[in-house]
């Protein structure tokens, strides 16, 4: 049980002889069960911050009008996850008025940098009221008192204060039987919330969190009547978790921890499909689903850019095709001027992100990287832990929510210079060149436990292979793929070999990702075509498959392995492959590789599983 192990790890860190566990905070991200998060937060209070990594200290006080027992532990987890080591002071039940007014209160002596004021409806609602006007007068009176308390406190203490909008319990609302009476009640309540938000605009040092708006998205009740009556808990743990997450985002913004750069993948991130294979007119972007989901992603990225976030691209693609799409595709929202720097090439993405950081002269800890691929997100997560990685899996319509959820770009205010930041960085990026080496990617690939399974095409795999041949434009060795009839002939013939291959790694299986058409000749075998999905580029898969073919050819007595290649203008990624694998060019369209002595082509980080056809009724 993952939760049990995590909690045990935290308990261990609370022991006197504990050693540092810098991976813990990242692993805490897997914990979503609220009761377990509460326990994790309770245990983390006993763990010295230096065991968890390099964290920023922050003194936070929590005071309120009701009991919110889970807020402190949930807040601790949320803050630690953002790289903040909090010291948290929690006041007793309903101490808000005392805390804010008494200069010698325990809260005042704690000298917080941030004071969180937790409010609930009954603190504002009069205990007895007869009409809407009496209700309104009483609520306004309470608000005026709160506003004065907060104003005096911020002036005296210098602490920042976070207030929030207060949801009204449905019990209060349904207590009024007349619909127009409910309307009057609702309006008074929204005026209160509007005033609470207004405090942030009116009073220096006061900030507001629109809790009522965040709760719209939360599948939880506001309060559990039993625990409200028994323990004055006005929020369910789920609501406490929502508040803690947003308050942590505020604390991050307060400390200036906002991320500065959003690095975006292209295929299946900013548009649907693979532009290298589907062509600029074949990608999914536009007014209809799923194209509109990708367009929403682009709109939100541009919205971030307008508020000072620097946008960069990191994509395995041909730069010329990407240029064409960015400049000319009619349905795109994002345009070249929105993008400060680009790494559009076939290099590993961790290498490219380091390059972007050097180009922009910004720290990697200010980077957020969003990509749909498990492979790429895990690579970057493992290779550059400072980078915040957002894995855009699942339905593209949910990608924007995934990107926004962590409040990574939250700041206290935006300024005019934020809007011009892209221009500034764009100029900076253009002056800098990519440089550097990458050795860590090999270690990463080794850790993936990549398994390549090769088998001869059969009735089940042949249609998929033919389809792959037709659809693949980037890793293909010829402009015209073998048609189905020819593929079937070759598969049935003893003088030919048609192979398909699958790739799996520790994150899952990719299914059939490529195939090879081979003809056998007396002293050599010829690879007529080799296609592979670009999803699995740069992992050594093509090398492993070629090793397998070389081995089979050598065992059959062939002296050379030859390969055909025709440049199509779009298959540059494939053009580099044969020379890289050790082949030499003999004519414009032919490569050759001697099989004696046996060449070493496959990398040491893949594992080959070959299924040879059983010689049944021949």
């Amino acid at each position, binding site marked *: 049980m993952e*939760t*049990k192990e995590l*909690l045990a790890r935290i308990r261990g860190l609370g022991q006197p002889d504990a050693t540092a566990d810098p991976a813990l905070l990242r692993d805490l991200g897997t914990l979503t069960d609220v*009761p*377990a998060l509460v*326990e994790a937060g309770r*245990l983390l209070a006993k763990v010295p911050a230096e065991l968890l990594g390099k964290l920023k200290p922050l003194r936070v006080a929590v005071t309120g009008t009701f009991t919110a*027992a889970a807020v402190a532990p949930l807040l601790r987890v949320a803050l630690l996850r953002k790289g903040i080591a909090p010291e948290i002071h929690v006041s007793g039940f309903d101490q808000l008025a005392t805390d804010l007014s008494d200069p010698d209160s325990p809260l005042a002596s704690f000298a917080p940098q941030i004071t969180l004021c937790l409010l609930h409806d009954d603190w504002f609602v009069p205990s007895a009221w007869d009409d809407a006007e009496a209700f309104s007068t009483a609520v306004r009176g309470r608000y005026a008192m709160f506003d004065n308390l907060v104003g005096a406190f911020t002036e005296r203490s210098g602490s920042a204060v976070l207030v929030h909008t207060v949801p009204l319990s449905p019990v209060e609302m349904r207590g009024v039987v007349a619909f127009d009476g409910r309307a009057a009640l609702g309006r008074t309540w929204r005026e209160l919330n509007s005033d609470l938000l207004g405090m942030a605009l009116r009073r220096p040092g006061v900030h507001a969190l629109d809790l009522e708006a965040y709760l719209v998205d939360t599948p939880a009740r506001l309060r559990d009547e039993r*625990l409200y009556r028994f323990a004055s808990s006005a929020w369910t*743990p789920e609501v406490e978790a929502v508040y803690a997450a947003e308050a942590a985002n505020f604390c991050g913004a307060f400390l200036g921890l906002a991320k500065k750069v959003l690095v975006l993948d292209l295929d299946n991130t900013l548009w649907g499909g693979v532009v290298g294979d589907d062509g600029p007119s074949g990608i999914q972007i536009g007014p209809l689903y799923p194209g509109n989901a990708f367009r929403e992603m682009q709109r939100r990225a541009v919205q971030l850019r307008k508020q000072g976030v620097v946008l960069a691209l990191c994509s395995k693609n041909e730069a010329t095709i990407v240029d064409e799409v960015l400049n000319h595709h009619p349905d795109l929202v994002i345009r070249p001027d929105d993008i400060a720097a680009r790494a559009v090439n076939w290099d590993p993405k961790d290498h490219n992100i380091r390059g972007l950081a050097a180009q922009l002269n910004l720290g990697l800890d200010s980077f957020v990287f969003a990509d749909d691929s498990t492979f790429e997100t895990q690579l970057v997560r493992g290779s550059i832990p400072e980078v915040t990685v957002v894995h855009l899996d699942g339905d593209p319509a949910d990608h924007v929510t995934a990107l926004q959820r962590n409040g990574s770009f939250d700041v206290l205010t935006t300024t005019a210079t934020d809007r011009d930041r892209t221009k500034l960085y764009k100029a900076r990026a253009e002056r800098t060149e990519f440089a550097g080496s990458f050795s860590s990617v090999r270690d990463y690939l080794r850790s993936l436990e990549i398994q390549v399974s090769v088998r001869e095409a059969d009735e089940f795999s042949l249609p998929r292979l033919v389809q792959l041949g037709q659809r693949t434009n980037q890793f293909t060795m010829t402009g015209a793929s073998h048609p189905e009839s020819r593929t079937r002939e070759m598969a049935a013939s003893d003088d030919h070999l048609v192979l398909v291959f699958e790739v799996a790694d520790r994150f899952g299986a990719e299914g059939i990702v490529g195939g090879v058409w081979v003809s056998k000749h007396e002293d050599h075998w010829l690879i007529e075509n080799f296609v592979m999905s670009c999803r699995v580029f740069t992992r050594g898969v093509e090398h492993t498959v070629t090793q397998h073919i070389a081995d089979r050819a050598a065992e059959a007595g062939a002296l050379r392995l030859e390969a055909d290649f025709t440049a199509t203008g779009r298959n540059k990624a494939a053009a580099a492959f044969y020379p890289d694998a050790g082949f030499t060019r003999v004519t414009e369209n032919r490569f050759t590789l001697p099989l004696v002595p046996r060449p070493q082509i496959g990398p040491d980080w893949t594992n080959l599983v070959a299924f040879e056809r059983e010689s049944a009724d021949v």
Partner: protein
Amino acid sequence: MSEVFTGVADLVGQVTDLPPEDISAEARFDALANWTSYDALRLLTGIEQHFAVRLDLQEYFAIKDVGGLVTAIAAAQGKP
């Protein structure tokens, strides 16, 4: 040992930091190390979420030992 008991022992362990293996059906809550009403409420929240049940608060606080809690959960699960 029933599935409910294992789940309850895990959650009691989570709240009290005691190893779940050490928690028996006979274990009395008021005899557990540092047992407070705050622990009891955290346990209630964990139990109700894990087993997707809702317990009567007065009955819950009247429960003396782990076995009693297991019985109460099983009864609540049986309700339509």
